[in-house]
């Protein structure tokens, strides 16, 4: 294995490092060495001193989910009695409010409801598109995979139908850690890592862009983090469909996994490694939802060039005991105070 010095040299001269080199760098370098490398990469890819954000809202169309992932504090099962499917009125009110607040898109995600088939999703998208001019970023790969299986369609067919009825891009959720030994333990009923990647491959082939996420800090080992990023980087070489990578830490409250929450330094190191490792994904997003305002602002010097969403509404992480709130004005202040120009963007990272 290369020595630390050689790996740093490769990174500094814009050469790709493999997952083993990434792991070695992650383990051996101190916080500010990683920060410095990531910060240089950030300015290499984005020389302008701009930090972007998007104004949108998470709309969770149902909390009923057949998946029962051990890390999730949001879902309920069908027979628990406190499940919901969003009413048309609530849905429309939320979208109207988003538009009124200068929002450009909605993030439409929900549980894998055992009784819903593709017609429900088609109607949902149609209803929205017939009434509003808004970008729909929706249905993470596990949902697409679930809808396809439930409706006996292929992934490609499912995506095509959804795209035709108004779906524009795919959120990168449900990736967790893209290693099946981990997935079998934390989310055994959710799609496999290969299936997740296949949904994204198919989406990208149909010209639907997507983001990619990673949820770490549960039962994975360090090398899984690099396996995960390597799989994403390989797919990106093939499709160039990922717009951004968003790592965030597992929030253990109210879930079935008892672990210590990852600390801010551990988060920042992984974030920095993601900027260093992904030479083919343009944007790295900070996660204020899981880290709070101070670490999110600090993250702008650890590789992140995007602050994510102002999130008029967020329910999933909030159910796991985290309730950081960040109004748009505060998000703009954080970016400005860090010496960057805040710019609202759309889903494709075009400046508005």
């Amino acid at each position, binding site marked *: 294995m290369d020595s630390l010095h050689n790996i740093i040299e490769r990174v*500094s001269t814009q050469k790709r490092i493999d997952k083993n080199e990434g792991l070695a760098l992650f383990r051996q370098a*101190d*916080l*500010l060495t990683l*920060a*410095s490398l990531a*910060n*240089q990469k950030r*300015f290499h890819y984005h020389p302008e*001193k701009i930090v972007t954000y998007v104004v949108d809202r998470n709309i969770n169309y149902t909390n009923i989910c057949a998946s029962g992932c051990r890390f999730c504090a949001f879902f309920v099962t069908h027979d628990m009695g406190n499940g919901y499917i969003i009413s048309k009125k609530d849905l429309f009110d939320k979208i109207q409010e988003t538009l009124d607040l200068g929002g450009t898109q909605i993030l439409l995600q929900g549980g894998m409801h055992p009784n819903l088939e593709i017609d429900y999703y088609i109607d949902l998208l149609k209803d929205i598109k017939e009434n509003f001019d808004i970008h729909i970023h929706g249905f993470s790969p596990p949902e697409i995979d679930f809808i396809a299986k439930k409706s006996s369609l292929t992934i490609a067919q499912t995506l095509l139908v959804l795209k035709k009825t108004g779906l524009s891009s795919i959120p990168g959720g449900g990736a967790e850690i893209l290693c099946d030994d981990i997935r079998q333990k934390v989310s055994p009923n959710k799609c496999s890592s290969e299936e997740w990647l296949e949904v994204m491959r198919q989406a990208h082939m149909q010209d639907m862009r997507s983001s990619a996420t990673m949820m770490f800090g549960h039962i994975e080992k360090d090398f899984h983090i690099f396996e995960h990023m390597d799989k994403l980087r390989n797919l990106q070489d093939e499709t160039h469909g990922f717009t951004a990578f968003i790592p965030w830490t597992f929030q253990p409250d109210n879930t079935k996994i008892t672990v*210590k929450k990852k*600390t*801010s*330094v*551990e988060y*920042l190191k992984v974030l920095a490694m993601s900027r260093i490792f992904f030479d083919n994904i343009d944007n790295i997003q900070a996660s204020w939802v899981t*880290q*709070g*305002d*101070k*670490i999110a*602002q*600090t993250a702008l*010097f*650890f590789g992140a060039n995007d602050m994510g969403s102002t999130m008029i509404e967020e329910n999933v992480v909030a159910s796991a005991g985290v309730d950081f709130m960040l109004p748009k004005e505060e998000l703009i*202040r*954080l970016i400005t*105070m*860090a*010496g960057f120009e805040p710019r609202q963007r759309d889903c494709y990272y075009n400046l508005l």
Partner: protein
Amino acid sequence: MDISFIDKRLEGIYSKVLNGSRLSKEDGIYIYETHDLIGLGQIANHVRRSMHGNKAFYIYNQHLNYTNVCKNRCRFCAYARDRKEKGAYTWSIEEIEKRLLERIDEPVNELHIVGGLNEALTFDYFIDLLKTVKKVRPNATIKAFTCVEIDYLSKLAKLSIKQTIQKLKQAGLEMMPGGGAEILNSRIHGELFPKKINHERWLEIMRAVHEAGIKTNATMLYGHIETIEERVDHLITLRQLQDETNGFSAFIPLAFHSENTKLTHIQSTTAVDDLKNVAAARLMLDNFDHIKAYWVMIGEKLAQVALSFGADDLDGTIIEERITHMAGAKSALGLTKEQMEDMITKAGFEPVERDSFYNPIKELNG
């Protein structure tokens, strides 16, 4: 160590640091102005590591805020009450003893004791307070009273500062915190805390305390109405006194919290400013041994990061912090020893539990 600066102007500051040259006021101002947070952090981290290696300190302590009744009513304070105001309290010596006994099974190594200027208390109260603490906790260090309180106590006792300190020392005072400095500057004094001692008096008392052989800390309350230049002047003033007395142990930058104060229009400090204050302190205060990242004020998460930006000490476990939480601090009320060690270890440092004088605490029975 090579540092690739994004802001090339930091190279000059770094070479001064490497040569052991003292940084100027202009350097100090530039430290606050640069947007190269990581480059700045790397310089401060270099200094911090050359002084303390991989060690990061913390202390097992207990706070006793004996009264919130205060005649000064500084505009930035959410803690003080008038004597008859709702929520006003003053602990009797018995209550203080009870509070100490409640936690007597815990390995507390330091009592941090500060309070308001309460006209109902006599000088004897303070002597009793110290003696009682020493009686109940003979092995813990008493770190008590800011310069503001010392000034007030000398008036209560009708004694000189020197005599007052001697009396307090005899009763058990061993160290003093660094509070009440705010920003050492007449403009800020006039606008924010006109009834409190001014900066000349604060420095005069610190000098007398150091001459009496008592070590103190020093602080700076930032993030209200002060300018960058005023911050840097504050640091340089402390550096000059330290050259004379060598009596300061640690410097603690304190982030202003405005909730429930008369300055609620001022927005909270952001992480970049908090980290810059830590780095600026480490670089400007070349004659201070220790820089604290006070987690109560900047939050646990950022305090952990600050260990790589010049801080070598996370302060205490503190189970019952009141003053900053009254002003809306979102940090935990207390951290356990395990949480403290976990934070430090995961930041890549070696946790060292210390006493008030930075001697490592040796675990009893191996």
